[in-house]
């Protein structure tokens, strides 16, 4: 009987330890999920800036494409 009681106590300890580890794992997963969301937002932001830069670039390219041939002839 005593042996069985010792065994049950040991299991209790194991269960408590497992429970604590699960709580900490849960927190890690939540933190990773939050970081993932932040990364996605930053990526969206960079993509939006790239689109803006491209919009600014297009008229510059067009206007310099017009200037280009004339200058080449001048040289």
């Amino acid at each position, binding site marked *: 009987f005593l042996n069985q009681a010792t065994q049950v106590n040991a299991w209790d300890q194991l269960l408590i330890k497992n*429970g604590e580890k*699960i709580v900490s794992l*849960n927190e890690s997963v939540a933190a*990773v999920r939050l970081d993932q969301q932040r990364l996605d937002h930053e990526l969206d932001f960079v993509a939006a800036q790239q689109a803006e830069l491209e919009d600014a*670039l297009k008229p510059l*390219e067009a206007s310099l494409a017009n200037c280009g041939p004339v*200058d080449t002839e001048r040289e």
Partner: protein
Amino acid sequence: SLQTRITAQETQNKAHCGRLDTLAQDIENLNKKQADTVAALTEAKRKQLELAHRVLRVLVKQEITRKTGFTISCEEEQ
């Protein structure tokens, strides 16, 4: 009462098991999301290279234009 404790432990362990399965699923979902993020970042890097190239080309063209006096005549007219 020892049997009661053992039963309680079994219940507890089952709960842990279920929680761990959920967490495993969560982690798998995070892995999938991360794969999407990697793809988006790869595209952003490709776009960045393209834009850098185009900006450089425009800057070089503008420099040539400026040297041949094109921009100066523009400014004079104003």
